[in-house]
């Protein structure tokens, strides 16, 4: 009885046996061109998994496929299991009911990731208010709670601010708050720190680590920057040309990369910083 109520409560229940996310032989074609050639990986509860690769390597496409956000005319084959739910072939209306609730997503560009017309508080609680009916008071309280959770100083002012009134780092924190508002079991972050300057980046990366402590939330973190990857991820998938060419722990990948492209990425990162 009490088990039943727990499993219907909002923190996405992750059954001990099924991994939160399991992708098998994922193939995506757009306009007749196959862009992902059989991606397979799985994610443990609370794990932080990094996707790394150059642009066009398929890392973002994989994340969009998981979130069901591919363009309408994309065709998807293979299997994406979220807990025990198969997402491939699921009608969009059903997928939409999972998005924001069990899958949250953060995007690259904080400048455009928020609606310029709405205050931050409203945007941070949009998914929450959609999936769980809230009164106005509850929604405001949730906005304040979320603002402090993502480290926005002066939450009272922040929830009332418009996006153009706050900095890029604060906007990205608000976007993260929006993504985690309904406590999804899976958080997808697509280059969330790329557009931020280095000091702000550090704080946001720390936030991602804090949010995924414990086993409740698993993270997929996409970046082309190995230094960023090393700070956040526990395990890494290296993408190239729509394939996963290598995977392993961060240590393995950094110390003994087996693929030439991985070595090139490491060299590039070394030359960078």
């Amino acid at each position, binding site marked *: 009885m009490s088990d039943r109520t727990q499993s219907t409560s909002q923190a996405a229940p992750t059954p001990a046996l099924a991994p939160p996310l399991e992708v098998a032989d994922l193939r995506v074609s757009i306009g007749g061109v196959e862009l992902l050639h059989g991606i397979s990986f799985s994610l443990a509860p609370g794990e932080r998994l990094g996707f790394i690769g150059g642009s066009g390597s398929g890392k973002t496409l994989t994340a969009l496929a998981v*979130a069901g*956000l591919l363009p*309408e*005319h994309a065709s998807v084959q293979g299997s994406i299991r979220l807990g025990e739910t198969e997402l491939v072939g699921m009608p969009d*209306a059903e997928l*939409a*009911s*999972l*998005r*924001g*609730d069990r*899958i*949250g*997503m953060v*995007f*690259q*560009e904080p400048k*455009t*990731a*928020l*609606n*310029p*017309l*709405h*205050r931050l*508080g*409203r945007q941070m609680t*949009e*998914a929450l208010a*959609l*999936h769980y009916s809230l009164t*106005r008071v509850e*929604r*405001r309280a949730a906005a304040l709670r979320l603002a402090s959770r993502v*480290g926005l*100083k002066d939450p009272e002012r922040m929830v009332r601010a*418009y996006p*153009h*009134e*706050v*900095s*890029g*780092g*604060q906007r990205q924190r608000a*976007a993260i708050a*929006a*993504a985690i508002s309904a406590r999804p079991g899976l958080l997808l972050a697509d280059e969330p720190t790329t557009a*931020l300057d280095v*000091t*702000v980046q*550090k*704080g*946001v990366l*720390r936030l991602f680590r804090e949010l995924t402590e414990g086993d409740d939330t698993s993270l997929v973190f996409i970046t082309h920057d190995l230094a960023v990857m090393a700070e956040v991820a526990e395990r890494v998938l290296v993408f190239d040309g729509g394939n996963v060419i290598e995977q392993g722990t961060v240590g393995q990948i950094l110390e003994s990369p087996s693929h030439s492209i991985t070595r090139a990425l490491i060299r590039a990162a070394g030359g960078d910083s």
Partner: protein
Amino acid sequence: MSGQRGGTLRHLIRSPRGAFALAVLALLAITALVSLFWLPANPNQSNISEAWQSPSLTHWLGTDSSGRDIASRLMAGARVTVLVVLGAAIVSGLIGLGLAIISALGPRKLREPLIIFIDVLIAFPTLLLAIMLAAVFGSGIPVVIVSVGIGYGVQIARVVRAELRQINAEDFILAARASGLSRWAILRMHLLPNAAPVFVVQLSLAMGLAILAEAGLSYLGFGAPPSVPSWGLMLQESQSQIAIHPAVVMWPGLAITLTVLAFYLLGDALREAMDPRLRFGGRRADSVQSGDPA
């Protein structure tokens, strides 16, 4: 979170342009309303012996070539103007928004043909449309409303469509989808509010142009019948005398100019009032606080 609309109105009244526009348009509306119940004189009552009188207590703005009271004709003409403006706004707004939404976000197979259809209609002269409609249904105010509504509606559709496409490509639309919002909810909460400034400016342009079109079509004889005083008709009747009696031409000309100007300023002021980024003179806070307390 709430107060969005209240904020818009407050900012509209506070801006000088918005306040001026609202004042002129309120005057127009009140004049039209009053003219339904009371006029200084019968606007169609001609009296040749009193032609070309200068402004006086009996004839506030003087009389025209037939001795009709200009002030009464202007007031009665305000009715036609309000009718045409509201009618054209509704028709062009519905056509514009409907076509824009379908051609920007509708089924892929429908978009291309619809865009071509819109372009064909834009290329089709509004005047020709009015003449054709007048030939079939007889000239009158409805012909003006429908032809102007269609003519500007398709232009609104084209501009708003481009705006919707652009907004639809923004990350916050993707983020809204990632939050689980339905397409309809995204249209209502994110796309339309962000396209609203462009739509409102276009609509206010259409409303201003509708007055000019009514004047033009009445001038050509496709608009208001002679028994219905309209500002366009007044211009037409008096234009041959402009060298001798310029004041008679000036009054309807002034009324048209002022009203059209008011609509343009209203559109401009509304656009700024609706966008929180523009409300405070376009000052952007990003530059002030770029540091993040992280």
